[in-house]
């Protein structure tokens, strides 16, 4: 068994563009769920409007930068549509509405009627060329310690993690300010915040808009990485990957989303590589074949997460003392 090869492959994915995108998404979700206590179960909807906003703009002849602006504006509009009717109500209404709207958005962009604009089920291709045109890295392959990246993926990785770092710093600065203190108060007890003169609805809406914009940035990053938007990649499971990343790293922590994302994608890839080797070498006794791998790896990752919740429920960076307060 080639353990070194599997570890190298896992590390490649763990620090890859996809992990960076999920880190950005998890930072946004952390603002919603970790700091404000908003149950957003439709984060993938923000990925979708961000990516489609950018892709449609580029497809119509606009620049990618304009497209990113359009994607961000679309995410703000989505946050307002989701938040204005539900944020005055109990927390579960937001959860129901977000999960439904995310699914509705996917069905709308893949519909035949939307084809002239969104490309229907085929999506839109070749949308991020101008991003790669900016690549300052000379063509070739780069790497060390067995990790090899092309100049193109290295460029996406650098841009992605720079974005994740910048988002972390901005959110850190926000949540340590009095503004962040109000968010945490709302998470703990919104009636208490109201009784002290805080406009809870306005703060929740600000949190939803900001976190949603980060979701849109994550969607745009994924789109740049894949060079396309395809409707059926925006499934609800992406929201739950983001939750997994966030809980793994520690909700309500500064570095949780970044580290959670690296660990999550590292472990997912490691499991898949090892399973693939095992299946191919026949050491699983022909019980599984290669088609089962995708399902099997998530079963194992799921098992790992269950164990994490049992032994370290606060995640990597979380504080156990906070969790124990919930029991009282």
């Amino acid at each position, binding site marked *: 068994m080639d353990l070194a090869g599997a570890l190298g492959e896992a590390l490649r994915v763990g620090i890859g563009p996809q992990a960076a995108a999920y880190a950005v998404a998890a930072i946004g979700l952390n603002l919603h769920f970790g700091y404000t206590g908003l149950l957003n179960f439709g984060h993938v909807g923000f990925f979708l409007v961000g990516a489609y906003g950018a892709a449609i703009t580029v497809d119509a002849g606009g620049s990618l930068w304009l497209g990113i602006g359009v994607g961000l504006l679309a995410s703000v509009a989505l946050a307002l549509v989701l938040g204005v009717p539900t944020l005055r109500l109990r927390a579960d209404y937001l959860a129901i509405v977000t999960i439904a709207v995310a699914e509705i958005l996917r069905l709308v962009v893949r519909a035949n009627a939307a084809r002239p604009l969104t490309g229907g089920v085929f999506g839109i291709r070749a949308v991020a060329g101008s991003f790669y045109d900016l690549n300052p890295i000379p063509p070739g392959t780069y790497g060390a310690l067995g990790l090899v990246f092309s100049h193109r993926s290295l460029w996406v990785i650098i841009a992605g993690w720079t974005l994740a770092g910048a988002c972390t710093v*901005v959110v850190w*600065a*926000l949540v340590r*300010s*009095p*503004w*962040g*203190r*109000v968010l*945490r*108060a709302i*998470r*703990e*007890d919104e*009636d*208490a*915040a*109201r*009784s*002290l*003169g*805080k*406009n*809870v609805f306005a703060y929740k809406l*600000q949190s939803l808009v*900001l976190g949603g914009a980060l979701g849109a940035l994550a969607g745009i990053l994924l789109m740049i990485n894949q060079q396309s938007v395809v409707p059926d990649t925006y499934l609800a499971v992406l929201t739950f990957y983001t939750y997994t990343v966030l809980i793994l790293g520690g909700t309500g922590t500064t570095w949780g989303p970044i580290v959670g994302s690296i660990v999550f994608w590292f472990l997912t890839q490691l499991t898949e590589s090892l399973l693939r080797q095992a299946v191919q070498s026949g050491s699983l006794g022909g019980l599984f074949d290669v088609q089962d791998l995708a399902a099997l790896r998530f079963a194992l990752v799921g098992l790992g997460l269950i164990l994490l919740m049992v032994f370290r429920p606060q995640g990597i960076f979380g504080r156990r*003392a*906070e969790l124990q*307060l*919930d029991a*009282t």
Partner: protein
Amino acid sequence: MPPEPAVAETAAPRTGPGGLEEVAAEPGVAKPDPILVVDGVCRRFGGLVAVDVAHLEVQRGTICALIGPNGAGKTTLFNQLTGFDRPDAGRWTFDGQALERPSAHRSARAGMVRTFQLTKALSKMSVLDNIRLAAPGQRGERVLSGLAPWRWRSEEAAITERAGTLLERFGLAAMAGDYAGTLSGGQRKLLELARALMAEPRLLMLDEPMAGVNPALTQSLLGHITDLRDAGMTVLFVEHDMDVVMGISDWVVCMAEGSVIAEGPPAAVGNNERVVDAYLGTHRSAAAEEGEG
């Protein structure tokens, strides 16, 4: 009543209810210097009339107790006045300012700050942060200013100092850095009171401040509340413990089945026939119970 304020001014050591000596003990009576005037507040839940208060005034600078049997509508009235629930009808003026169905945060900003029957400590925040949160009008609470620490740092330092003074006064200074969730029930009551004061209220509305508090702490809470009154604060509180009510109130309002049935100085309300009836049932059934017992 022009002579009334003069009486209050000349009475240097406070001896009785501030300016209420000559006010008649009858429901809905007008007071010389009311901070809160409630008119026709009505709240129905289906067929049940939870609150139906025709007229009620709360005198400035006094401790006013709101009593009544369970289900009398005391907390519901609190919820209407503080914007936590919308009345079906009614209006009120607070300190001369008419409040038209205010939202909870507007009501608090106007100066009516309430506490809750079940304390709402913000568990996963430090005791100090619980207090600092309550400071009104913070620049750093606006999202863009939040990103610019230089815009709120000096303000935050002043708030922290004020919070420290309050923590000291309520004996919570040693726990400033602890999670509020680790405090005992009594300490949470103190924290909630300190937090409400941090919000700079002009009318402090306490919903059962003594519920579940041990006798020693009750004494200390009572001391805090009378100190506040002596410093000029108006306090309106709901309480079931009659010793507390009779001990510190300047004025007592009794509600039953949603309406104010009696009000007056503590002694007068304690002897009021309608109040006794409301608590014990009608004369006939009270007599019957005595006979059985």
